Every structure is written in C-alpha cells, then in structure tokens.
C-alpha cells in the first residue's frame, strides 16, 4: 500500500481521476453515456501503444522521433493491402504492419547502435526519410473507409462488454511490456543500460543487442498503432501520424519516464497518454476552447519533470542521510 502511494504513477493517475471527476460533474454524459465511456477508453488507445514503445526506448537513454512517420507508413500499408490483395485475412495485415514497423525500428536501432550517434539525430533523419517514403508512395491518394472490409473497421470501433477491442489490445500490450521490463532479465538490462551505458558495457551486458531490441519493439508497437489507426479512423493519407512523436515523448515524460534513461515504467507512460487525450476532450466541456489544449499539455510536461526532479533530489538526500546514520 505504501509503495503504491509513493510510486510516481500514483500522482499522474490521481490527476487523471480528478480530470475525469470534474468533467463528469460538469457534464455527466462525459462518463455515463455509452458513447462517452467508450470514447474515454477508445481515443487514447492508439497513443498508448506508441507511448509504451517510446518509453522502452527512452528507458535505454535514447529517443525515437520517427514513430509518427512509422505510424503513417503502416497505416497506409494497411489500406493498400486491403485494396491490392482482396480478401486478405485481417491477421496477415496485422502481421505485415507490425513487421514493417519492426523493420523500420530495427533500422533506427542499427544506425544508433553501430553509428554511436545520438538517437535524437538519427531518428530526426529517419522522421524525414520515412515521411518522405510515405508521401512518395501515397502521393495525394487516400485510403477511405469504403476501401476497408467491414470486419476490420468493426475492430476499430466496436466493443466487448463495453470495453472497445482497441483498449483491450492496448491493455494487453501495456501489461506484457510492463511485466517484461519489471521481471525479465532483458527488461532489467534495459534499465541498467539507461542508467549508465558505460557501466553496462563494462559489466558485459549485450548493450548493442538490447538497444536493437528496444528500437525494434518501439517500431513494432508503432506499426501496430498504425494498423489500428486505419481500423479506428478508416481513412489514412500521406500525412497520417504527423506530430505523434512529440505527443508520445510528452506522454512518457508526463508519466514519469526520465528523459535521461534508467527510470520510469510503461504503466506511467500509458497513463500519461490517457491523461493527454482525456484533457483534450475535457477542455471544451469545462468551457475552455480546445485550442488551449496544447498549453495545458505543455504546463503538464513541465510540471511533471519539475516534480520528478524534486522527488529524485529528495530521494538522493534521504539515501545520503541514511548512509551516514548506519555508518
């Protein structure tokens, strides 16, 4: 109980609950109508997937700015597959989307790991390059909902016992990623690499391989998000997913994933993503034009990192005083 109250995720979860509560008091249909409840769960699901991938990369002290472009590419691939290969099984489309995402992520990871260049620069480059490929491929074409099979579109909007499929998928991903990072050797090594890359290398951890895996996972999750984007919105064009990278980084940072690696959880990143998009929908109901959403998000990001800094300073002071007492 105490660890729960003390953990970084609790604060952000409390913020989310408060936002939902206040908005619901103001307008009960925000939560208690069927659409309201559904949208509350459905809207953030895609960003949650991307934010989880981003969190995994940030934990290793890297960053992946190309995720928005990867989402765009896989979303368009999804549409094209349904148009060009009539009757293609939906599961194959999912596999193809994730495979493409994984391949693009692996390329990022390879450039970062072997080039020994900061991920910021590399993924800034691939942000342009992947988007360029997308524009080149899609041109001014767009995929419309009428091009996609009914079953596939239903996947993006319908629900199982009031819980949308998208949310279930996102939840499973969050739980699996969270479990892996917390309990598995590979996951712990990602934290070790993020805390101190040189020490991890000297200790004999497979740093290169782990970084490749982190980027691959991030790409694959962005690919999954792209497929689901097509299912949810039915329409994709060359600009799909633009700007998503900053939202994903923002969600991770708000969720307590330290930008310098080594700390944070994917649960936090996921809650951060939900908070970001819930605020967006809550603002108009609270009487604030949603133009102000970004300003609120910005304040949140800054508030979160300041809080993180204060907490970590307090923790280190506490550790020092404890050491002095025991000595």
């Amino acid at each position, binding site marked *: 109980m105490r660890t729960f109250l003390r953990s970084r995720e609790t604060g952000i979860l409390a913020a989310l609950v408060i936002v939902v509560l206040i908005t619901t008091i103001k307008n009960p249909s925000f939560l208690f109508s069927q659409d309201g409840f559904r949208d509350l769960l459905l809207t953030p699901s895609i960003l949650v997937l991307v934010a989880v991938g981003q969190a995994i990369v940030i934990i290793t002290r890297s960053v992946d700015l190309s995720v928005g472009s990867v989402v765009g590419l896989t979303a368009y691939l999804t549409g094209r597959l349904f148009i060009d290969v009539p009757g293609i099984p939906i599961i194959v489309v999912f596999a193809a989307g994730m495979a493409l995402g994984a391949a693009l992520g692996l390329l990022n990871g390879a450039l970062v790991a072997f080039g020994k260049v900061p991920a910021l620069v590399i993924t800034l*480059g691939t*942000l*342009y*390059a992947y988007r360029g490929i997308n524009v080149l491929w899609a041109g001014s074409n767009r995929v419309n909902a009428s091009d996609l099979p009914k079953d596939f579109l239903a996947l993006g909007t319908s629900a199982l016992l009031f819980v949308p499929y998208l949310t279930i998928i996102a939840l499973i991903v969050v739980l699996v990623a969270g479990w892996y990072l917390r309990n598995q050797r590979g996951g712990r090594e990602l934290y070790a690499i993020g805390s101190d890359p040189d020490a991890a290398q000297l200790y004999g951890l497979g740093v290169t391989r782990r970084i490749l895996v982190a980027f691959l996972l991030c790409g694959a999750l962005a690919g999954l998000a792209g497929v689901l984007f097509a299912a949810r919105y039915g329409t994709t064009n060359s600009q799909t997913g633009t700007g998503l990278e900053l939202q994903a980084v923002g969600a991770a940072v708000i969720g307590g994933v330290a*930008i310098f690696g080594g700390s944070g959880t994917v649960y936090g990143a996921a809650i951060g993503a939900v908070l970001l998009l819930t605020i967006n929908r809550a603002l108009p109901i609270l009487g604030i034009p949603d133009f*102000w959403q*970004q300003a609120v998000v*910005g304040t949140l990001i800054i508030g979160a990192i300041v809080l993180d800094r204060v907490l970590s300073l307090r923790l280190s002071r506490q550790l020092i005083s404890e050491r002095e007492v025991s000595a």
Partner: protein
Amino acid sequence: MTISAPADSRTGTRVYADYGRPFWMRLLLTREMAVIVALILVIVIASLEVRRFGTTTTLGFLLLDVAPILMIALPMTLVIMMGEIDLSVASTLGLSSVLLGILTQAGWPVPVAIVACLVMGLVAGLINGLLVTVVGLPSLAVTIGTLALYRGIAVGLLGTTAVTSFPAFWTGLAQSKFGSTGIPVAMVLVVALIVVFVALLHFTPFGRGIVAIGFSTETAHFSGVHVNRTKVVAFMLTGLIAALAGIYWTFRYGSARGDNAMGLELSVIAAVLLGGVSIFGGKGAIHGVIAGVLLIGVLQSALRLANVSSDVINIITGALLILSVLSPRFLSWFRSLRFRRATPEKQKQ
C-alpha cells in the same frame, strides 16, 4: 581481448594524421569545408542542369524562404554547442507572430508591437534557460514542454482565425528586393545577425565559454566560466531571434496565425547538425551552419524546379542528415584501419 582504437575523431589517430600538414590542407579537411564544397557543387550542378535555377527570381525566393531558418540556426548553434537543445523555437516564432497580429489589430503602432514581441521572445528564452539551469532539468524535456506551451498559447489566443491586415510599408519591407538583383532587403538583417553571431561565438570570452561548456561543463566551471549565466543568455538569444523570425514571417506572408512555422524546429536542428555542429557539444562553427542551411535550401529549391516531387526532398533531407552525422564515424574507422596497417609492429606491443 583486443582493445580497438578509440573511434572518437578528436583522439590520437586524428591528431597524428593532421600533424605536419600545411595550414591550407588542414583547413580543407575540416568538416565545415566539406559542407561548403558540397554547397558549391550543388549550386554549380543546379545552375547547369536545372532550367530557371540560375535566375534572380529563384535566388530571391530561395533567400526569402531560408531567411527564418538561417536566423534561428545562428543562436541554435550556440545552444547545441553547449550540449543543450531548444525544440521550442518554432513555437516562439508562432507566438511572436500571433502577438504581433493581435497588437497591431488593437491599434498599437507597429514598432512598439515589434518591441513587445522581442521582449516576449526574451522572456520565453529566459523561462527555458532558468528551467534548464536553476531547476537543473534536461533541455530536451524542458523544451518539449515549452514547445507545446508556447504553441498552445499562440493557438489559444487566435484559434483558427488569422490577422491579415498589416501596414503595406512593413509587409513591403519583408518582401521587397534590391532592384533587379533578386536579393531581398531582409538579407541585410540576416547578414548583420551573421556578423554578430560569428563575432560572439568565435571572438569573445562568451563564445569561448560556450565551447568550453560543450567540451566539459565541469572543466568550464572550474576554469571560471559562468556556466549557468552563459546558458541562460544563449537560451534568451534563441528566444529573441525566434521572435524576430516570427515578425519577419508575419510580414513576409502578411498573415499572423497560431500555427505559423509548425515543425520548423526540426528543419533548423537538421541544418545546424548538417553544418557540422556536434550534438554532443563543443564542436562547430557558424560558417559551417550557414553552409548547412543554404545546402538544404538550394537542394530543395533546385529539386523543386527540376520537377522532382517535393516528396523525394524529405527523403533526401533525412538521408543527408544521417549520412552527415555518420560520416565522421566512417572516416575514423577508415583512418584507424590505415593506421593499423601502417604500423603493425606497434600494434603487437
């Protein structure tokens, strides 16, 4: 276990390779010269191969287009050379544009409104700088926050509306050119800024402080550099110039909108890195950055005139950026290979 030669280009191999070469040769081998040579090559090829490229009209539009990126790239160079980054510049530009629109609409005289925008830019930079230094936060996270915050205020103030009525004198100033040369009048401002920033970075204690901080913050601190003060000033300069670019942007397009120059921060950073500034800090020069900005600008304009779809341009920009940061790594790998082959006895010891 074999220990491979250190890959960093600043280490032994590189120093020995450079030693004893005449000055002009060392100059030619710098990273900045590579960018300048590439720029000249692109200009020559484009003038010969692309119809209508070598005209004053093209030159005029090219310079008008690159002016904001060129302006912001100058202070961004200082920030990146300290090992920091500022992602909020395009948002500051947008906020400045919106503020200018609102103030002129409210009947403020344009010069007063301009001063207000510049002050806003200084404050925006000050906030970034204080959060990075006093609170001690990573600049990447801080400026992702202020990227959203400043843009949010800009979009919040004007919504989807735009202010489009500005005095003809000011819009004319931002769009006009020197007679038939095609060179925009606004380039006077840009050139003045370039002179100021070259002087600032390469010829003042402040500039040496920036390089020192980039090499090692601790060493700089113990050498008497006011680390925090230098960082705050650099961030304020970035905010100031971003606001100035916002004023230029507003008059150039005659429109103040909340979403002006969205995403420009990535173009600026790409150009600075292409110009040879190290993202780790401590290494870079203004002339390289200018060449980097112009290289991207010329390439994009030439490809557009050659009817290459604007989509390929993104791919080329991205690939160029990746190649440019990876090339020193290839070079040092190549050098270490040659070094090892040339001195086999030493390697055995």
